[in-house]
């Protein structure tokens, strides 16, 4: 509370309100401690027990890296990790390029269908994920594949390509929203200035627009990468019989709690923390 307020509201208010505020801030700190404890204790415990030397996940009996060595010789896991990585990389690159183009187009041009298109871009973000998973499952198996079969003679099946297609479809809107937000703060006079100084449109784009948009584009790309690596539900409906990291973990988790899952989870946690630090470092440089 500032000095002016205390003076103008008088002594009575001051003596009455101070204790209330103190109790309030104590409760706020407690709330914060409890929430962060709730969010982080399970993860810390998970990491701790990945180094346990018995199968117990309640009593820590001794340090061992046994579960990690087991992981690295697991071929199923390696295949799943490989698929996840390929799908994440492909869908990130494609959706970042397409999402950025779409954002640029809708920022610069107004046309009759732009409202419809924008609504269509927000829809995948707003509707529950399972709806999109099912729609794609039906579309691939009951529409696209039968059509392709009659054209090329062989019926394709779901696999890495269908998952990648689905991930690109749900990533485009996220990249679009992030880049579009960046464009909203964009000072278009800079482009005009560049053109006044003799740059043609392509040079202006390459030397002025693109560098200024880069933080948004990278942010969108990183978001797409994380979403793709993380996705279970849409992947589950479009994967056919291949596994990605999430579908593989899911099959393990459904079976029960084991130290192998703890070790695998810890590796994944380490990787995503690495990504976060990398992106923070990149932002700081800028």
């Amino acid at each position, binding site marked *: 509370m500032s000095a002016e307020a205390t003076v103008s*509201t008088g002594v009575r208010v001051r003596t009455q309100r101070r204790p*209330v505020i103190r109790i309030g801030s104590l409760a706020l700190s407690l709330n914060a401690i409890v929430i962060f404890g709730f969010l982080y204790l399970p993860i810390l*415990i998970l990491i701790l027990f990945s180094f346990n030397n018995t199968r117990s996940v309640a009593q820590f009996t001794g340090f061992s890296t046994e579960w990690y060595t087991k992981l690295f010789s697991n071929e199923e896991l390696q295949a799943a990790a490989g698929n996840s990585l390929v799908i994440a990389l492909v869908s990130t690159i494609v959706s970042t390029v397409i999402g950025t183009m779409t954002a640029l187009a809708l920022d610069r041009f107004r046309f009759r269908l732009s409202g419809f298109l924008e609504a269509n871009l927000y829809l995948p973000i707003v509707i*529950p994920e399972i709806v999109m998973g099912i729609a794609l499952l*039906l579309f691939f198996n009951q529409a696209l594949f039968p059509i392709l079969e009659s054209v090329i003679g062989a019926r394709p099946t779901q696999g890495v390509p269908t998952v990648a297609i689905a991930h690109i479809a749900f990533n485009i809107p996220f990249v679009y929203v992030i880049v579009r937000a960046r464009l909203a703060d964009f000072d278009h006079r800079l482009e005009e200035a560049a053109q006044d100084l003799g740059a043609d449109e392509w040079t202006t784009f390459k030397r002025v627009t693109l560098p200024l948009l880069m933080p948004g584009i990278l942010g969108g790309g990183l978001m797409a990468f994380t979403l793709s690596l993380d996705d279970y539900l849409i992947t589950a409906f479009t994967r056919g019989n291949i596994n990605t990291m999430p579908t593989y973990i899911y099959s393990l*988790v459904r079976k029960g709690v084991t130290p192998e899952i703890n070790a695998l989870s810890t590796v994944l946690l380490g990787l995503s923390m690495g990504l976060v630090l990398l992106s923070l470092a990149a932002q700081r440089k800028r």
Partner: protein
Amino acid sequence: MAPITTRIAEGFRRSRNARLFGLLSPGAFWLLVFFTVPLLFMLLISFVEKGRAGGVKVPLQVTAESYLQFFNACSSEFSGPDCNPLLYINIFANSARIALIVTALCLALGYPLAYFISRQSVRSRNILLLLVMIPFWTNFLVRTYALKQVLAESGLFNTFLLDLRLVNQPLELLFNETGVLLGLVYGYLPFAVLPLYASIEKFDFSLMEAAADLGANNRRAFWRIMLPMTLPGVVAALVLVFVPVVGAFVTPDIMSGGKVEMIGTLIARQFGSSRNWPFGSAMSFIMMLLVLVGVVYYLRSGSKEERAL
């Protein structure tokens, strides 16, 4: 004659429409073919007869059977005598109830936390915000699994309570609705905190002092000034938590082991063991409509409040 690429480049330079088309067509194509058309196709499938072993009956037979079944679970000729006609509607209502509880908990815990963070020094604010964001970067399954492990009957939480003699027998925190609620709050709380923080951070706290000067007590100043002015953040948090929770599949499935049925698990089952694709499509469509109507309504009322201020 100039090479084809140069001519295309020349065309782009001259024509606004060509540029618009070039920029827009990949995104529009992808969304149309791999999102809009599949959604419409799902709508079509919801109106045809199911195949015997999954899939749909060929040739297609148009029927509203799936929708009838949703509103009256006993409409099928195979339904037994103790069939509950409101079975599916009850599952929808129950999911909405669970989602409302989870959303309320996330707002009640998240608002004070966002407020707390916004009142810290810049340095600790950044650290706390990072702590809120880290779960976004963490695999959702891994997080749910971590919680499940702690809450298990022989897990650390129960061991702790038993050792302290706070309880005589382990609490049942998994394979029931409690587990699902805990799992959902755990999963979606960060989604509530970030938009709340964005709104509260922009709030001008001198307004609270002004309200106090004019005689309002803390509580009144909060309800009449701070909450209405941070309402856009509250609405965003509400939508960001409610929508994924109402259609959740992973959390109820893992935390309850299939014991608590929500819309997501019910729909997913139609494409697994129940093998009724048209019915699953119909329920997906109904859920999507309900969610969209709700979201549009809330966003409208949210932006109206904002305009009124």
